[in-house]
Structure formats: C-alpha cells, structure tokens
C-alpha cells in the first residue's frame, strides 16, 4: 500500500530520455518500491536503468542520493519517509581513477 510521498529528481540524460526532471511519487517507503512506482509512470526501461535485478540493489554505476546522501554512504536499513528528496544521476559523472576497477 502506498504510504510515502517522495520527490524524485532526474538529471543529465535521464531528463531527455524520460521527458521529466521532477516527479512526486507515492511509494511503499522502500527503494525498490520507489523505483517500481517511478517505472509505473516512466516505463519499465527506467527500472532497468536504475535497478540491478541480479544483485537486488540500485545499479552500482550511478549516483542515487536521498536528501543529498549517496545511498552507498548510508548505513543499516535504508528507508524513505514522507517529504524525502531522491536525486538520480546516470553513470556519466565521474572522477579520477588511479586504480581503475
């Protein structure tokens, strides 16, 4: 049952691809639930662009931030609450890489 309202911001090529840069989404408070809810609006491709089904987590090569904090830096169970802002950047922005993975 949807119970949380979240603002989702899209950046860079995601904006052009999905024709949107800001959405208000109702979801169940989980990250996967949010991505599913966004996919219901933008299409299944969004789910594949953002979620790594095999690993059961957000794709490793993009920036997915809740209230400005990258989820890779958040500890414990990561949930969403009413009024949270989620920013999603496609894997286009990067840094120096002394030991390329």
């Amino acid at each position: 049952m949807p119970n949380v309202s979240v603002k989702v911001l899209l950046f860079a090529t995601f904006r052009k691809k999905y024709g949107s840069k800001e959405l208000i989404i109702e979801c169940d408070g989980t990250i996967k639930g949010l991505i599913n809810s966004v996919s219901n609006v933008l299409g299944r491709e969004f789910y594949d662009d953002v979620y790594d089904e095999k690993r059961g987590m957000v794709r490793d090569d993009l920036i997915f931030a809740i209230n400005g904090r990258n989820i890779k830096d958040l500890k414990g169970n990561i949930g969403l609450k009413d009024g949270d802002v989620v920013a999603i950047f496609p894997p286009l922005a990067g840094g120096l890489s002394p030991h390329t993975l």
Partner: protein
Amino acid sequence: MPGGYMGKILRVDLSTGALRTEPILEEVARKYLGGKGYAVYILYNYLREYEFKGISPPDINPLGPENVLIFATGPGTGIPGFPCSGRYHVMALRSPLTGSIGSANSGGEWGPFLKFSGYDMIVIEGASEEPVYLSIVNGVAELRSAGDLWGKNVFDTCRILSRRVGGKNTSVACIGPAGENLVRMACIVNDEHRAAGRTGLGAVMGSKKLKAIVVSGDEKVPVANPDEFREVSRRCLETMRKNRVTGEGLPTYGTSILINVINTAGGLPYKNWQTGVNPYADKISGETLAETYLTGRRACWGCTIGCGRVTSVPSGPFQIIGTEGPEYESIWALGGSTGVKDLDAIVKANHYCDEFGMDPISLGSTIAAAMELYERGYIPKEDLQGLDLRFGNSTALVEAVWRTAYRVGFGKYLALGSKKLCEIYGHPEISMSVKGLEMPAYDPRAMKGIGLEYATANRGGCHVTGYTVSVEILGIPEKIDPLTPEGKAKWAKLFQDFACVVNSTVNCLFSTFALGVKDYADLLSAVTGWSLSEDEILRIGERIYNLERVIINRLGFDGKDDTLPRRLLEEPMPEGPAKGHIVELERMKEEYYRLRGWVNGIPTAEKLKELEIEL
C-alpha cells in the same frame, strides 16, 4: 635520447636577448619525466643558484626579472594515439598572486605544436625593456618586437600572430590586457580560449614584457617502441570510448555536469561560501547550458573526449556570438559564488575572462569576496565608484570583469586577488583562499578529503592537485563517505602523486577518469623505451611533489600555511546534507604528514633520501 622527447630546451634571457639551446638530460627525465616534473627540477636549481649568490628566496620578486617562467611539455605530449596529449604545463618560481610556486596547465594545440617546432621546453628568465614576442618555427627561435601588439586583447593577438607567422601547425600563447596590467590573476591564453589559468602567470609574462610565444613546425615526436605503443594506445582509447564519463558524460555536458552533482551533495559554495547549497543551481547547470546556449563542442589536439563547449547568447544585454565555455569552475566562480543565476551573464563574463586573459576562478571568487565585504558594510559605497556589488547582480559581475582587467576604479582592488582585497578592508577571514589562491567549487565541509587536499596543495587552494572528490562524491574507483575525515589522507596523497605524473607526461587529467596507473606505466614505457612499473610511476609523482614542496618551504611556506579559511574550520555548514559539519583538518593533516614523511609540512631528510632527491 629516449622516445617521446624532441631532446631540446630553449633558454631565453629577456634582459640580454640571448637565446640558447641545451639538451634534455636523460638522467633528469628518467627521474622527473617532463612537464611539471622537469620544470620543478629546473626551478629548484635556479633557487639554489640564487641562494649561492646570497639572494634569499622570500626576497625574489614574482614580478621582477629574477622570476623564472617555464613552458613545458612531456614525453606523451603531441604523440598521435597518446590519450588526450594536447596539453602543456607552465611554472614559475613564484606566483604574483600567492608568493608560492606558480603552476598552471592548458590544452588546445600549443603544447603539441611546441614539440613539432623542435623543442620540449622553454625556460625564460630576465625581463625585456620593450614588448617582445618569441617565435619558434621549425627549430629557429627569434625574439621580435611586439610593440604593435601591446594593448591588444587575446583574440586579436592570437589571430594576428597566427597570420604573421603562418605555416603548418601554428599556435599562439599570449597575454591580454590583464597580464600587461599585472593583474594578479592574469592567465596565459592559447588558441583563443584555452588557458594556463591559475596562479597569475599572465602577470609574470607581463612583467617580463613578453606578449606572446608563437610556435610552428612539422617535426614528429619519436616513439621508442611503435608496435608496443600502437597496442597499448588501442587498448587505452577503447577503454576511454567505452567509459561512461569520458565516452558520454563529458562529451555531452562538459564539466558542468558537476553543478547539480555537487549541489546535491551540499558542497556547491554559494555567495562566497556562506552555504553549500545553491537554490538556483539547476539554472546554471550543464543540463541547462546544453538546452540553451550550447552550439557545439571543441576538442583539444589529439583528444577523443571533446569537453570544450562552444556557445552563443543570441540576444539580450549579455549577447555574445560564438564563444567558448563556460565550464564547471567558471560557472561556479562567476555564478554560484557571486549568487548570479543568469547563465547568459556568466557566459559573457567568461568570454571577457578569455578576451582579457584572466582566471575566472580567482576573479569570480574575488568579486564574491568583495560582494560579501560590501553587503556586510566593510566596503564603503563610494569606493565602488558606481559598481553595485550586491550578490546576484549580473550587470555588476560583467562590469567588474573588465574593470579588473584594466584596473579601472574599484577594479584596481579586485586586481590584487581576494586575499589582498580582504586584508585591505580589514577582514582577511572573508577571503576563501589557501596560500592566497582562491579555492575552487567544492566545499570541504561536505567532502572532507578535498579540504585536506586544498590545505596541502603546493600551489594553494586547488582541486586538480589531487581530486579526492572522485572517491568522496563520484565513487571512482571506490566510494567513501564524504562526511567522515577517516581514510582521506591516503587518497589525498595518492591523487596528488598521480596528478604529478599526468602533469609531467603531459596529457589531460580527464583521461584518468578511465585510465589507471598501469595504463600510464604501459603508455610511457612504450613511448620512452624505459621499463616503468606502476610503483615506479607513483614514486616519480611522489618525488616531484616533494621537490616542489622543498621549493615552497624555501619560499617560506610550511605547516602553518597548510590550512583553510576560518569559515570552513569553525562555521558549521548551515543547511543541506552536510548541515552542522566543519572540516576536521588537524586530524587529517596529522595522518597525511605521517604518510608523506613530513614534519610540520617539511619533508624529512630521510624522505628526500628515500626518493633520491639531492639538494
């Protein structure tokens, strides 16, 4: 002579007009590569010679004939297939902006064309009485009168000299009015829109009455093992093509894709660093630039990325047709830091920076500091002579740029840089600079490692000396929490050492979004014929960083100068994801010095011996 080198250094004494050629020394090149590394080695020898003559290094006048200016390429520069090898490095014994070492880097075509003209490096000492330019065409160097060029802007100077010299592969590096007027943040511009931007090296050229250096030629850069190089090159270029950053992100959006990324993390300094959240960031972002004023892109010589932006503002008060930029740092400094949210005004202000030859980071930050001084009532209105320097005033921003270049009215104060400006008005804490160099667009309260990096960077507040943002925000090659000081020291050191390798190769730091140390070891081994391991590559970088540190120690800088503005150490971030955070600098610095083998910011004798640095 190993591959990758033309084998020649041009020595120019502007006081006597004497020109002489000397060889690149293989034993020096093996230890310091070229570019920044070789230049640091030469500068250290000048310093030692001055000390033997009884001249104390802190007495060296950055704008006097005793300052030394070096233009340097490296073994990778100008080799087709060597990733992003269209750059050169410029160094000076002292920066007129900071008093520390002068250091800057530029792309375009000038670096490769210097090598095609037959030289790896140019070392300039003394000062001319009359304006001159240096011409190097296929190995023939001459000093010629620049009397007719003095006073001309960058675009005119580049075009006139290109036509005058003619020939194949001709490129001009020059100063504009800002350099002639000894504006402390004046830069050296080549190919009209590419700049060795930081630390005021354009003013050093101006003080020497050297208007321009034009290079031209068609010599080829030798490669020691062509078959091996072809293989490594193919591998590296393929890696860069497939990499989402170098293959798609930078070509599509340029560096300004970072505006929204860094603002989201709460680290995009706004209104002279009073906060790290800019409510108007999206209006000045790479995404908005792409939708509005972007008309094309321009790559440097030999570059497969092409991050350069070609733009036009078709109408309105800030109309400008056919310019280049702005990139991330210029948008932030001229826009975010000044609170200006009109992208057309930022494009125009950036255009003027190129036209007059000024570093937009230092200039924008100095204007932002003036805005804060004015809004707090520290600058009397009458001093501004009609310039309404309130945050967010687009018209005042554009006006301030040319007033600075010509030192008109309040521009004479802006021309001194933020540190001097804030000292004059009695509030040095408002200058957001380190060692006198204005910091770039990342607030370290939201990413602690870059604070350590700014504090310990030899040239002053600089991000490209060691880009820890990569691990803290972008997650490359691994993701670490930006808000903790833990573990940042090793990354700062590693990035600083590796950046020395890149700037001594000399190619573009952006290649390292995709390529690692092993790729560099393989590329340089194939080009030079030396067998370089990854460890050896990083050791060369560490050697260069330490010798550069020895120079700034002699100039009077030590641990007390490895610090940050008080705002970052004491004023908690007021909002955003980093709300409540300051920079725990001392804790990170202690670990950093231990890893470096330094005491109070000074390399120990043991460390220098370990790195085979002979003083």
